[in-house]
């Protein structure tokens, strides 16, 4: 039993903290959100140089080892500063899928480009009817002449509008919720038949709806065996779920910290509101929520790294996302309430942290969904 950080983890944490402190204040972030791309390509290059983009990959693939705990340590710091760079979309989710499903040729081309910061990816699996079941896929892929033709609509594709390439999950066989029959295809974002509708999300990231009309790809664009992409998708989502849970833990910590500090300076009726015991005990409860969220995300990360059994990993991930979701509602709402009106304004960071954690609750399934999934497992 060892809960200490490795040297690499310590380094990652220090690096992100320094980066945030030096280069990523709230103003900078706001400007990035308002910019065309919605994130900083310059920072992305820095991430590559610092090796952050290599974190999700195994050493064989040229990465730092692919440990979920490493990811957790780093993404918690991302969360504190509400980074808007598409780390989850490109490096974690798409990266894991490529690493697991890609053949040597595909991997050689893609993984090193991701690690090098030269390639943006987006994974498109969710559809309007799929809610939080990533295997609910109606987008179809069928052979026609020598090509494979993909048609369907994808929603909530994080980084969709900025991606060079899209990983499209489409059904080659089976009914809409079958596990078997789902394939992953690498599609150029500019391919004919691809229509992207990009938007900013409530928490300042970028995402897109993607319409695929008779998009033609070749056999070599398929990642993995035909109809067998589901397991890799689920595993990638589990790992990314630990990542966003850690991101949420970081953001919750920021919310707690800012609320406590505000309560020490904000005066009402002649005294700082932080001296009112009713508010004090509620802040103590926020602290407890933050600690429990942190603990269970550590549990899930360690489970991903050490468990062999996929079902056990999934259960651990659902436990974490469930508990973090509860903390998100409680800590997020209390932070706004204790701040009062000022916490509702666009110009203060607290409201944006609240929006970020709310979006993280939804990503990959909200707390209620994961509680049910846990109970069913």
């Amino acid at each position: 039993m060892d809960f200490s950080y490795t040297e690499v983890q310590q380094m990652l944490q220090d690096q992100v903290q320094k980066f945030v402190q030096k280069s990523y204040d709230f103003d900078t972030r706001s400007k990035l959100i308002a910019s065309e791309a919605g994130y900083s390509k310059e920072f992305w290059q820095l991430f590559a140089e610092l090796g952050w983009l290599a974190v999700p990959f195994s050493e064989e693939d040229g990465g730092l080892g692919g440990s979920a705990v490493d990811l957790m340590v780093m993404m918690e710091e991302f969360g504190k500063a509400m980074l808007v760079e598409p780390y989850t979309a490109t490096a974690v989710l798409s990266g894991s899928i490529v690493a697991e499903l890609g053949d040597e040729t595909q991997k050689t081309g893609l993984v090193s480009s991701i690690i090098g910061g030269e390639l943006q990816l987006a994974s498109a699996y969710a559809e309007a009817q799929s809610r939080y079941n990533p295997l609910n896929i109606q987008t179809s892929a069928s052979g026609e002449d020598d090509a494979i033709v993909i048609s369907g609509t994808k929603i909530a594709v994080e980084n969709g509008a900025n991606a060079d390439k899209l990983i499209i999950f489409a059904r080659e066989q089976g009914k809409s919720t079958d596990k078997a029959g789902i394939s992953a295809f690498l599609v150029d974002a500019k391919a004919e038949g691809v229509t992207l509708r990009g938007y900013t999300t409530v928490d300042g990231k970028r995402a897109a709806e993607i319409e695929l009309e008779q998009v033609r790809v070749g056999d070599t664009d398929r990642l993995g065996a035909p109809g067998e992409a589901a397991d890799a998708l689920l595993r990638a989502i589990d790992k990314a779920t630990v990542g966003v849970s850690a991101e949420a833990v970081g953001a919750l910590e920021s919310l707690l910290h800012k609320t406590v500090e505000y309560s020490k300076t904000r005066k009402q009726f002649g005294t700082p509101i932080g001296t009112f015991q009713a508010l004090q005990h509620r802040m103590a409860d926020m602290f407890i929520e933050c600690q429990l969220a942190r603990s269970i995300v550590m549990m899930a990360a360690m489970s991903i790294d050490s468990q062999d059994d996929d079902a056990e990993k999934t259960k651990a991930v659902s436990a974490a996302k469930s508990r973090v979701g509860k903390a998100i509602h409680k800590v997020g709402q209390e932070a706004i309430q204790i701040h009062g009106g000022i916490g509702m304004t666009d110009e203060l960071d607290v409201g944006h942290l609240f929006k970020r954690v709310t979006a993280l609750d939804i990503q990959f399934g909200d707390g209620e969904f994961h509680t049910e999934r846990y109970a069913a497992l």
Partner: protein
Amino acid sequence: MNADFTAEELDFQQEVRTFLQEEFPADLKHKVDNNIRLTKDDMVRWQKILYKKGWAAPTWPEEHGGTGWSHTQRHIFATEMGLYGAPEPIPFGMKMVAPVIMAYGSEEQKQRFLPDILASNVWWCQGYSEPNAGSDLASLKTTAVRDGDEYVVNGAKTWNTLGQYADWIFCLVRTDNTVKKQEGISFLLIDMKSPGISVKPIVLIDGFAEVNEVFFDDVRVPAENLIGEENKGWTYAKVLLTHERTNIAGVARAKRRLNALRKLAAESPDGYGNTMSENSMFKKRLAECEIELQALEYSELRTLAALSVGNAPGPESSILKIVGTELAQKIDELVLELSGYHSLPYVPDQFEDGFEGDRIGPGTTAAAALNYFNNRKLSIFGGSNEIQRNIICKAVLGL
């Protein structure tokens, strides 16, 4: 003990329903049903329709143009409006400044201001809160210094709802710095076109600017705009604050939203081949909201019944405010839960009148997160729920 309406009341209920169906403009109904914001013109148009019908001011005495309705009729009217989705008139003129003018204003002030409020000719806004006062209203710092026949006003007000539309603002201002904070406050009416007033919108986290800061820089206000006596303003405002706040519980609105929620659940796939209305856990959360709403509704009816037999409204309104806002926020959470990924796009403009871009997602789900964010204000504004709990402790429990 019964909750039944009399035959006359049932007739009245029917009359209100017919009126709403016939007179509430279809374009406004469309906006309300699709989460599109009403413009100032929309609101004024609707209020003038009510005025024409003679129903603009259910809470006013008949001598000033009120309806002369019983408490039960007022309740029926508010309920039917809420269920139909017809917005209540903006409260700042009708329900906030008018009662103060009626109670403490001079005859001239009544003649001058009340008819335009009734007819929705003049839009009022409220100038109470200040940047550093928050729930501690009485610590306000905006000053009004008497200079001949005028007051010179300096300072800033905040959380000024829809002040961007306002013709007039009613303000609490400090006219004496040397006494206890409550005893140096006056109640002043100020023309928003006065030189020295500037309005700065405050964008909230849902992307809308429904509140403002209002700055006063040597604004000269005729002394005739003072309500009642100088330094008695806090007394007047307190009466207003504890004045019957109709519909504070928001029962009808909550009913309407729960109906919409049920409908949305029936249309929302659960991802596994069923809809969310078949998800037993979601059904239970919905049932809990419905049950809470019934408890709230009957709490409101009890208050109403007490008013009807002449009892003064007590600290019950604090309960209604707390439970009503917490329930509304819970409903927001359930809508958000159903909306999921559909609620993530941040396109506030698509809920503004005249938006011509491509809409992303259906109105209900696309607005879910924004409504969830915006409605956090419910437990903060209008006397925060913490203040309401303090009131219960003091006024009811004697703590």
